């Protein structure tokens, strides 16, 4: 019998379909993948180490640079952790606005995902439509936050500012229009025979395997496991909103696609409700002055306000000794922050629970035994962002 010889193929880190700087070492038997070893860390910036040298308000800016497709979600997760540590309550208006913006951000992130994933598999048209709508969201969010990718707008205790008057009309116009747009994407892909052949039955994961590999987010739910942090541990008043958690059954690339499309529709519902029910009131925690900078007008008139302003800007605030874990359902899965405080104004330890990193750990399991052409489909279906994986 002739000796079996495997070929090793290097994929990435500069490869358009690896969504950043992911490198894969593939061992091939013909076209079948025998072994896949991901190599990561090309984008490592030491965010957890940097956070230890920054005050709590400063470290917020680092979180924008994790999953750069949904900066506001990262801000939210970090602020929830710090607020839990401080044990302060956030006003209802700020909570609703946080939900509204986080859900818009989820839609934007999923639009980017459907665009690039379809592009990877050769369906180029989707990109143009999805980017058109993502642009609308980014412009709307820019109206409030002043930034497209790195907003740092959700602050400890509330928001950096209240929304301008022009914001809600634009949001309402968007949510009215958006379900029709999702229908458009579906006409391009859902019943498309080529799309189905490229995605159905590809890199399937059973529910039990997903849990064992720690997979969360749409990938887990596509395998039929009901776990969503918004329902399991409601935060920021998610319990006030009426929405469903879309589920899949087969756990293949196609089901992950369907789950994400349905999620966009549900997010749209939440945004609609939040915009309709938005209560009046302050957007910062007024009963926690140690974390809330005074209003600009006050600073000019009142010496105590001026002192408080400088104290917060220069030194931040101290937190009680202790450790907390707070997490949210980001567009990729469970994004958590585990903070340990030693009673000073800087985090003693900030551990990020990055959904992309842990989901990527299941990639080898997904693609081993599959065809080499399906690697791109599998990577795309996990929806990774290397900024979050490498931190």
């Amino acid at each position: 019998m002739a000796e079996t010889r495997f070929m090793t193929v290097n994929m990435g880190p500069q490869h358009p379909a690896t969504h950043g700087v992911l490198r894969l070492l593939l061992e091939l038997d013909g076209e079948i993948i025998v072994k896949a070893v991901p190599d990561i860390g090309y984008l490592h910036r030491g965010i957890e180490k940097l956070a230890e040298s920054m005050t709590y308000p400063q470290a917020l800016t680092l979180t924008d640079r994790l999953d750069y497709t949904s900066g506001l979600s990262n801000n939210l997760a970090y602020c929830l952790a710090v607020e839990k540590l401080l044990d302060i309550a956030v006003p209802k208006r700020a909570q609703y606005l946080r939900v509204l913006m986080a859900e818009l951000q989820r839609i934007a992130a999923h639009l980017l995902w459907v665009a690039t994933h379809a592009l990877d598999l050769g369906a180029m048209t989707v990109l143009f439509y999805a980017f058109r709508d993502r642009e609308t969201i980014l412009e709307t969010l820019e109206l409030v936050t002043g930034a497209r990718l790195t907003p740092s707008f959700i602050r400890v205790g509330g928001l950096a500012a209240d929304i301008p008057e022009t914001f809600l009309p634009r949001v309402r116009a968007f949510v009215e229009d958006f379900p029709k747009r999702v229908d458009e994407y579906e006409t391009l892909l859902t019943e498309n025979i080529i799309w189905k052949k490229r995605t159905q039955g590809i890199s399937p994961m059973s529910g039990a395997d997903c849990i064992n590999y720690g997979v969360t987010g749409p990938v887990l739910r596509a395998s039929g496991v009901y776990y969503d942090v918004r329902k399991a541990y409601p935060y920021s008043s998610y319990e006030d909103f009426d929405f469903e958690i879309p589920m899949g059954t087969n756990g293949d690339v196609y089901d992950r696609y369907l789950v994400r499309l349905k999620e966009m529709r549900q997010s749209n519902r939440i945004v609609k409700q939040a915009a309709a029910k938005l209560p009046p009131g302050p957007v910062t925690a007024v009963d926690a002055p140690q974390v809330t900078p005074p209003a600009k007008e006050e600073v000019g008139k009142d010496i105590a306000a001026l002192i408080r302003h400088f104290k917060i800007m220069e030194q931040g605030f101290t937190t009680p000794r202790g450790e907390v874990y707070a997490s949210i359902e980001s567009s990729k899965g469970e994004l958590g922050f585990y903070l340990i405080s030693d009673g000073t104004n800087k985090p003693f330890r900030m551990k990020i629970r990055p959904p992309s990193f842990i989901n990527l750990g299941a990639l080898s399991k997904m693609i081993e035994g599959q065809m080499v052409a399906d690697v791109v489909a599998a990577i795309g279906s996990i929806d990774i962002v290397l900024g979050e994986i490498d931190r």
Partner: protein
Amino acid sequence: MARCTACERLREKFPEAVLAVAEFRGETTVVVDKGRLREVMTFLNRGDETLYDLLVDIAGVDTGNESPRFFVVYLLHSIKFNNRLRIKIPVAEGAALDTVSDLWKSADWMEREVYDMFGIAFSNHPDLRRILLPDDFVGHPLRKEFPLKGDDFDRPFRVCLAEEKGNQADG
């Protein structure tokens, strides 16, 4: 206390392994003796009433000058019972922990990250290599004594490059 049946059961089953139970902001942390890690984790993962099927994260902590110096923290979630539990293991410098990557596959990468960032080894781990940093990296950056900025942080790139070339010529 109805909320933490798991810690009650842990106390019952492993009275000498549970070193402390702490409650803060509604979260429960159980400090467990390093030597009993495998037994406790197997019980939490496989036990019928305490089925922590999802290992959310493993975090390393360097306390700086306390003794023992490190903590390895396991964040667990039970999808069936919808609750969370945190297990904290004190680890002395240079000591190795048992791996849990056979109980939860997700622990494979998480343990590699703890090893990479803190230099805490895991015995019986299938593939204990650095994960984020290059293989030839010296030191473990999340240890407290590791400098935030490297020695050459403030020096111009050209100087560093020239020195590197000089070194190569010498060698």
